[in-house]
């Protein structure tokens, strides 16, 4: 029996139970039906180097492209093999374990329809679900939620969406009510932000540069704050070390999972992690990217643990506004590129594979001779998840969730 046949029944049930009781009835209906899906979207702000995260170690042009910065199976540390062609950044053992047990999938050479190189515009396209950038008031996840209401799946009066962070990510903003949770501890300005500010001061205000430099030096001497450190209680004094970033990622993601796991909690959630704009000293095998991927891997573990029983009905989609240049730049980093990876994890996933129509890495195969060419529309992936996991109808996906995307067919088979 197709899913569409179920919908009227569910709607009748909901109406029959009386609007007043709709909220309290919801979880039971969901359970009676045997499914109560959760979707969490994590936006990596700053554009992730997909090649530094998931390396095409089987591509003959891989080593010549990245030289001694290429992740390798016999590298130091060795990359984690995914299949005969791709290997995972060694900072992500949790993701590797999930992948091996079929609870994670990786989409490679993917991109939104955005082809320029502005973070802001790229993030707008990614989160709004629209083809073109521009300040928009709603995101695709929120509109998907509204569509689900018509199917009676979600109580329209309750907040069935969760935003993590003091600002709700655009992807989940919109007319469907959203509840938000703000982590107690501030995440101080990232090292990247400090470096950029220092650079700005060095060009414009030497006095301010001196002060900021001294502060950064102090932070690096202090290392990461620990217990018993008098400064650790004060978020503004603690150095923005990677330990702090790891703690923040795990706390934020773990909390999202705790809420999503509740029988009467929200069913979709969204959050953003910053710091992925790795122009200098990217450090895929150690350093900034390695550290961030490790923190993200820790967040995956926190989600899995905190989801408890609901893990088997969970899908987490980790996406970014675009990728980074295929080649390493002059400052041992990468610049704004196009094609990148998306991570999908969750107990509800049909994983254990890298999904990619591999474009190749020869100069002529790169986009504009600089970026990994996108061969998979990220919207196809997201539409596949929304259709098969949250049961949003395909025409709604094409018209209101991702307007003008009728040509982009939902990717099937992602969900178990």
């Amino acid at each position, binding site marked *: 029996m197709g899913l569409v046949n179920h919908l009227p029944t569910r709607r009748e049930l909901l109406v029959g139970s009386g609007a007043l009781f709709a909220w309290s009835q919801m979880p039971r209906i969901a359970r009676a039906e045997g499914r109560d899906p959760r979707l969490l979207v994590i936006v990596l702000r700053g554009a992730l180097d997909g090649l530094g995260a998931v390396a095409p170690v089987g591509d003959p042009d891989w080593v010549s492209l990245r030289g001694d910065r290429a992740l390798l199976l016999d590298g130091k540390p060795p990359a984690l093999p995914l299949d005969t062609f791709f290997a995972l950044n060694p900072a992500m053992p949790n993701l590797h374990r999930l992948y091996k047990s079929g609870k994670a999938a990786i989409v490679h050479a993917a991109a939104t329809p955005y082809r320029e190189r502005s*973070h802001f515009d790229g993030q707008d396209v990614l989160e709004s679900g629209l083809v073109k950038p521009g300040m928009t008031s709603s995101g695709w996840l929120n509109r998907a939620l509204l569509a689900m209401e018509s199917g009676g799946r979600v109580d329209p009066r309750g907040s069935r969406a969760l935003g993590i962070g003091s*600002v709700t990510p655009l992807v989940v903003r919109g007319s469907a009510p959203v509840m938000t949770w703000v982590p107690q501890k501030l995440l101080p300005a990232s090292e*990247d932000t400090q470096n950029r*500010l220092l650079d*700005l001061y060095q060009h414009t205000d030497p006095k301010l540069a001196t002060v900021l430099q001294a*502060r950064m030096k102090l932070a690096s001497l202090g290392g990461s704050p620990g217990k018993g450190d008098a400064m650790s209680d004060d978020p503004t004094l603690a150095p923005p070390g990677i330990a702090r970033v790891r703690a923040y990622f795990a706390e934020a993601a773990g909390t999202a999972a705790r809420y999503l796991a509740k029988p009467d909690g929200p069913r979709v959630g969204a959050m953003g992690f910053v710091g992925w*704009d790795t122009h200098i000293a990217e450090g895929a095998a150690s350093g900034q990217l390695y550290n961030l991927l490790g923190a993200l891997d820790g967040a995956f573990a926190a989600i899995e643990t905190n989801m408890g029983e609901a893990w088997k009905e969970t899908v987490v989609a980790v996406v970014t506004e675009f990728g980074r240049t295929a080649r390493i730049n002059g400052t041992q980093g990468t610049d704004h590129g196009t094609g990148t990876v998306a991570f999908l994890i969750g107990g509800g996933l049909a994983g254990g594979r890298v999904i990619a129509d591999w474009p190749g890495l020869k100069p002529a195969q790169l986009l504009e001779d600089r970026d990994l060419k996108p061969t998979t529309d990220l919207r196809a992936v997201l539409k596949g998840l929304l259709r098969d996991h949250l049961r949003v109808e395909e025409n709604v996906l094409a018209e209101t969730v991702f307007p003008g995307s009728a040509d982009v067919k939902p990717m099937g088979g992602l969900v178990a």
Partner: protein
Amino acid sequence: MSNAAKAEVVLALHRFGMGPRPGSIAAIGTDPRGALIAELDRPLVLSAAASLPSSAKAYRTVADANARRTARAKQAQQQAKKQQMAAAPVAAGDQGQAPAQPEGQAQGYSQEKDAAEMAAKQAADAIPDPGRPIYLQEAKLRTEAALAADIGFAERLVWFWSNHFCVSANRIQSMSGAYEREAVRANALCRFVDLLLAVEGHPAMLFYLDNLESMGANSTAGINRSRGLNENFAREIMELHTLGVRTGYTQDDVISFANVLTGWTLVPPGADPQHGGEFTFNPRLHEPGGQTVLGRRYEQEDAEQGRAVLRDLAANPATATHVATKLARHFVADEPPPALVEQMAKTFRDTEGDLKQVAITMVSSDDAWRGPPSKLRRPGEWVVGMVRATGITVVDPVRFTGGQELLGEALWRPSAPKGYPDEEASWIDGVGRRLDVANYFAERITGMADPQVIIEDVFASQIAPEVKQAVGRAESRQQALALLFMSADFQRR
């Protein structure tokens, strides 16, 4: 508008106002000096303040709550003790069976005492302190006035004088906001002597500088009691408020002036439900007879004697120089051009301390405009500048005052009567903290503020090309906003 004209408008907003906000550049037009002066003619009254209590009312409210807390605490303590007495025989019996342990006994006693005290504290805490909500309402009103101002020159003057004549909310939270409204705001553009008389006669100041119970040795109260004179109030008036430190007054002048000021106090709040907390002159505390201050004899009786000294201090040339220097240092540069200071001091002397004319002299002088933006904005100015740039006009006072406190400039809570300092050296080490605050604020507003719009529309592109570039290349709107707010263009004025 030419770029040079735009630059002067932006400088006017930064240096003399609260910083650009959407529409403010267009509103100023082509004559920024004229616009600054015109703003001084608009009334400085806060219409929303009508709903806030006067300082005396606020003080009575807190005193009343304190009285009720004390009564409740006493009651709870007595009750706890009664219960312990009732339970005591059992405890004694237990102890009788075991060898006496003096140490344990002592501990038991102290636990009982602690329990009574804890009960008292809990009972007291059940009545919340009304001082803090009053403080927060005042903070909200003041901040929103700064956010709403077209330019904010007049508001900056209120802030300046409030800091010059500071009191501390750490000592007198309930009155701190009303003090500023009643004494400072109402007189910030009048003659200095009127401002001086208003602040020194305000109950909050008398409380803050310990004058309430200062009494002359030969006053009625002084003869009957062992307490006596407190020099604090008189010294700070001369050192900080008027003449300036090391300007020729002696310790004898301080003592004489302190004697003059005895009896300046307030109506006890509990004694008078109508006027409790208001200024009063209590002759029983006042040192009788004449006093000599700075070589002049003051034979007046009651509070008129003090007013006469204050009038003379206001007219003293040292006061003109002190005030002119502080104003120019605050608005223009840590080391202000001497010619500018002299011009302002001259206006002060020529106009008998007309503060509006002094302000006009300042903004009319080329010396006030010539230097590059070198002043590091104080934390409060910087935070308000950030919020203004986004167009936000309503604040959550808890969050806002918390942010200012984090940056070392807690609203109405300076650590000493000198107020918050103005020089860069005092604030520059806090720039790292500002980054975290900027980062946090940027995260909160990233959905409603566009850094490019702020640069183009709010700042009319009057910002260093390096800043534009850094903002354009940032990895997120949050980072772009944080870099913009932290830029020298934003922090210096």
